[in-house]
């Protein structure tokens, strides 16, 4: 019995090592004072200083930030309304809507990227900020709906009945009951959408234009050139940032559950 437990623990440790050693190594080497080798040559902030003085990088960071801010806000708003409707109303095509959201989460990103590229060309929408915004809202929304819906089903349905009996209309119920109750889930969805938008490569690759450079795509083109300490530093910053957002989101979801 003890042997089995030991085996299990070794196996779990190895798995977590597999998950985390590459990332931890990346972060450690972003402080290494040498350009090419893996040998530790001492601690430096140099790569970060270099990073922060790169004007192009600041522009694409700003673009990505604005894009993530707007797309996560809009996606969360529409997703919230969608989740509430799916939960509360029985309507024609409800199952179709459910199925569509399910398929959107499962389908490979490349399919959505390609289809949106064709759509935007048919709509004569130039590729740039707006094409990216619409695409990011669309791929974040299903995740918002699923996150909020999974919290909504744990709410006591009698609350809505009571509110209705007391004369509250749907919008009032939404504003005074659902919104406050769902606030943790709403925050979590917003944070997760923000990270999804900040990290997305595949869909953005299809619908980005030359005028509006964004961070993940810039990282992609840098990474293709090979390992460099500046990229280590950039990736470490972005990883730690998204890590913080994910932890916040999980914290919001755990609370009062």
């Amino acid at each position, binding site marked *: 019995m003890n042997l089995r437990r030991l085996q299990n623990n070794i*196996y*779990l440790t190895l*798995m*977590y090592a597999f*998950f985390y*050693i*590459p*990332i931890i*190594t*990346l972060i450690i*080497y972003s402080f290494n004072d040498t350009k090419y080798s*893996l040998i530790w040559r001492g601690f430096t902030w140099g790569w970060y200083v270099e990073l922060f003085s790169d004007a192009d990088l600041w522009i694409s960071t700003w673009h990505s930030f604005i894009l993530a801010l707007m797309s996560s806000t809009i996606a969360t708003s*529409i997703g919230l309304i*969608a989740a*509430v409707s799916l939960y509360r*109303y029985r*309507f024609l*095509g409800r199952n179709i*809507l459910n199925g*569509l959201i399910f*398929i*959107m989460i*499962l*389908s*490979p*990103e*490349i*399919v*959505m990227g*390609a*289809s*949106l590229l*064709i*759509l935007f060309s*048919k709509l004569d929408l130039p590729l740039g900020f707006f094409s990216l915004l619409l*695409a990011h*809202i*669309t791929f974040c929304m299903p995740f918002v709906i*699923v996150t909020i819906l999974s919290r909504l089903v744990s709410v006591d349905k009698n609350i809505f009945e009571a509110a209705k009996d007391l004369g509250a*209309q*749907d*919008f009032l119920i*939404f504003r005074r009951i659902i919104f406050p109750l769902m606030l943790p889930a709403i925050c979590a969805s917003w944070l*997760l959408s923000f*990270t*999804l938008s900040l*990290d997305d490569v*595949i869909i953005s*690759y*299809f619908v980005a234009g030359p005028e509006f450079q964004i961070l*993940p795509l810039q*990282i992609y083109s840098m*990474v293709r050139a*090979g390992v460099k300490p500046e990229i*280590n530093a950039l*990736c470490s910053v*972005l990883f730690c940032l*998204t*890590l913080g957002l994910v*932890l916040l989101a999980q914290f919001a979801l755990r609370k009062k559950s």
Partner: protein
Amino acid sequence: MKRDQNFKYFSLSLIWFWLFLFALLPTCFVVATSFMPPHQNDILSQTSTLENYQLVFQPLYLKIFQKSFVIAGLATLICLFLGYPFAYLIARMQGRLKNFLLMLIIIPFWTSSLIRSYALIAMIKTKGLLNTFLLSLGFISGPLPLLFTNTAVMIGLVYNLLPFMILPILTNVERLDSQIIDAARDLGANRMTTFRRIVLPLTLPGIIAGCILVFLPAMTIFYIPDILGGAKSILLGNLIQNQYLIAQNWPMGSALSTVLTLILVSLIIIYLIATRGNKKRDWM
């Protein structure tokens, strides 16, 4: 009562409008484009043809399909064998440690897989950490040429997609009633029989969901073969991206994308058949 209905209609029309315009309509466009003659990027053209689909079955494309299937299939199997016991052990844990370990699996799920793939380069390159480690232990006599091979692509895929296999199985195991397992043991079934006859069938929905979440991205995340595999490793995702953005051959790209969607639909049908009768299908 009037305003009541207003809120409902406003919500429903907003969602339907958005999903129609940005999900259903574009999909129809892709299917329509896939029947256009090659390099004809305007779907308003009159002629339609099956040429692109015939091309999919030409040796050149068929080979890429085959290779994608093999690599993605292998990656899925490795994820399943590595991930299933892991998910099972974590799901059966209790308390704070479990929450912490769970969090450590959710983090890779949400953080950038591009960054995590990049982090792998430093691990597996010729003078990387893995080779240095193995050399110093004396397991190998010379450095393994891993980077820019299919093995590197496989490692990259498994590394990135493993959480997508673990999480659905984990939720599935958590919902498993442990009394059923106890009952089986009481009735004399050994560990192996209990697993094969009780646990495995009951966690099949989680396994299938995990396989869908790993298999399709494994074929289509084009940046993993691109940065870890070098020029030789062309998978389906690279091909589609190439057809759309470099060759500017949207009809061919659309045909490939449509085939991919059909694969997804058939996998979902398998999933639905396997979960028939289950009321709860929430797997995330």
